[in-house]
C-alpha cells in the first residue's frame, strides 16, 4: 500500500522508500527511513499528506507519498 492511499488516524510502518537518491536524502533528513512508524494525521484530496513522526508533524506532498510503500500496524 502507498502512504497516499492511507486514511487518517492510521498508524503505518514504512516498507520501502524507493531508490531515488535525491528523494532518499530529503526524506531521511526530515525523519523517515524504512522501518519508521508513522501516524497519518490528515489526508485530503489534492493536499499534502500530514503525518506525525519522531515527535514532529510533517507535510509531505502527494507525489512523494506515492513513492512510499507502507503497511498498516495496529
Amino acid at each position, binding site marked *: 500500500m502507498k502512504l497516499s492511499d492511507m486514511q487518517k488516524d492510521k498508524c503505518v510502518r514504512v516498507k520501502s522508500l524507493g531508490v531515488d537518491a535525491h528523494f532518499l536524502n*530529503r526524506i531521511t533528513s526530515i525523519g523517515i527511513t524504512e522501518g519508521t512508524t508513522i501516524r497519518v494525521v490528515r489526508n485530503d484530496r489534492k493536499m499534502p499528506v500530514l503525518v506525525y513522526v519522531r515527535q514532529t508533524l510533517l507535510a509531505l506532498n*502527494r*507525489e512523494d507519498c506515492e513513492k512510499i510503500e507502507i503497511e498498516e500496524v495496529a
Partner: protein
Amino acid sequence: MNSIALLGQPNSGKSTVFNALTGARQHVGNWPGKTVEKKEGSFTYKGAKYTITDLPGSYGLTGNSDEEKITVDYIKAGHADLVCILVDASQLERSMYMLAEFAGMNVPSVLVLNMMDVAEDKGISVNAGELSRRLGIPVLPFTAADGKGYDRLRDLFETELSSPHLLTSAPNLAEAKSLKEQGEAKYTWITQMLEGVTTTGSLDYKMSRFDRLATAPVLGKFISIGVILLGFIVAMAICMPFMMLGSMFPVLMNEPIANALTAIHIHPWLVSIFSLLIPNTLYFSTAMAAFVLGVNLVFGYLEEKGFIARTAYQFDGVLSKVGLQGKAVAPILMGFGCTIGGTSGTRVMDNWGQKMLAMAIVWAVPCGSIWAVMPVISGMFFPWWGTLLVCVGILAYVFVLMWFVSLVFGKKLSPVETRTGMIMELPPYHKVHWGHIVKEAFYKAGDIFVRAFRTVIVISVIFWVLQYSASGSLEDSLLYKIGTFIEPVTKIFGLGWQSFMTFLSSAFAKEAVLGVLNAIFVGQSSLLDATFHAKTSGVEGMALAQIMSQTIAPAEALALIFACTFNIPCVMALSTTYRESHSLKWTARVAAFYVGSALLLACIVYHIASLFM
C-alpha cells in the same frame, strides 16, 4: 581567532540566536558565486572578540544542494573553531539528525537544546547532563526567543574555545554501505543517545481544534487569507501614527526653511533642495521605515507562532507553478496593500533564491495606490463600464506577469532540479516572545530608514535636475528636451512625451502620477511640487480630463494606464528590495525587466486598442 559557526535545521532558532548575539554588528551578503545568503557577525564578551557565521539552513548534510555543500566545505576547511549545533528540544528525536550528520567531522562542538519552553509545555523533559556525558560535548538547555540567558551561551563559547571538546560518540557507519543503511544507522544512534534521556517514540498526536480548521482543504485557505489580511490591517495600524508624524516634516519644514533661506539670499536651487526635497525625503523614509516596522512585527509574530508554516501547506500546490514555496502567499497578498510591505514580508522565505523570486513576483501585484490612482485616470477617458473593464484587465494581467517573471527569473533563482514537492515540518504553535521580535523589527526599520534616505535623496536630485527650468516654464526643462527628443522612440510604445514622462514618474511613486499629469497639462503647479506632494487633492479632475483628452487619444491613455501600473512599483520598493536581497545586480535586473515589460505591454495595448478606438 574566536570563530563560531551556527549549524541547525530550519526552525531550530539559528537566526534568533544569531541576531541576539550580534545585534547590529552583522553583515549579510551571498556566498561567492551562489544564490545562498551568507550571514556573518561579531560580538565582544569580557573583552574578547568573537566572529560568528550563520551557516545556511538545511535538514541534513548528505545531499548535494548548494546549502549543504557550502556548510560541509566551510566546516571541513576548518573555518570554524567551534561549531554550535542547535536542535529543537521539543522534537529531539528528529532534529538531532543534524548532529548525526555532523558527527564524522571532528571539529570542536557544543549542542544547544533550543526551545526548552516549548518542550516543557509539551511535557517533555531532557536530561542534559546525561546526554552530554554520552556525547562527550557540552549540552546547554536554552530558549533562544527568550532574551534572557544569553550570558550562559557566551560563557559556554568562552570556555569551549579555550578547552574544546570533540564528540566521543558517532553513528556506526562501518557496516552501512547504502544511503538507506546510513540513514537508519544515524537514527539508531540518535535513539541510543536519547534512551532514558528524553521521551521518544510515542505516536500519540492530537491536533488542536484550531489546527484542524487551519489545515482543512478549503476552510484553511480562507483562514490563511483572512489572517494575513488581518495582519496587514494590524501592520497598517502600527505604521499609521509614524506615517502621520512623518507627513508633518514637509508641512512644518517647507515654508520656514524656504523663508529663512530666501531671506539670506541663497540660490533658489538650494532653497528648493532644502525646503522641498529633504523634508519630503524624510517623509518618504519615515513612511517606509514605519511600513517595514509594522510588517516585521506582524510577520515575526505569525512566523514564530507557527502560522506561516500552515499557509505554506495550504498554498504550496498553487505557487509551485511559478517556482515558489507556499509561504510566498503571505507577502504576495500583502503586496495588494503596499509593495514595500510585501517585499519586506519575504523574510519568511527559506532561502535567498526563493526570497528574490518572491520579491520579483510581489512587484507584479498592483498596490493600494495603483487602485486609487488608475481608476481616476481611466475615468477621464472612459465611461464607468470601461473603467471596470480596465480594472479587470489589470487583475488578469497580474497573473500573466507573474508567470512571465517566473519564466524569466525562475530558472536561475529557483532551479528546476531543486523544485521538489513540499516536505516540511509544521512546528507546534509556539508561545511568542515579543522581546526579540520587537528588537529585530526596530533594527530593520532603522536600517531601512537610513538606506532609504540615501537612495531617495539621490533619485530625487536626479529628478530635480531633469525638471529644473530657469524660466519656470516646462519647455525649458531638460525633461522636456529629452522627452521630445526621444518621442519618436516612445511613440512606438504608444506614448507621447507627456505620457512617457508620466510613465517615468510612476517608477518614482504611483501617487505622483496624477500630480505629474496635472503639472504637465494644466501647468498650475511645478512638476517638482506635483511629484513630491504626491497628492491627488488639488488636481482639478474636470479641467485635467478636458485638456488631456485633447492631446491624448483613448488608445494612448489605455497604454499609459497599463504601463504605469506595471512599471517599477516605486523608488521605496526598489530600495527595500535592494535592502532585502543585498544584491544590486539582481535588484537592477528585476527593475530593468519591469521597465522593459511595461513598455512592451504599452506597445501591445496601444496597437491593439488603436484598431478599435
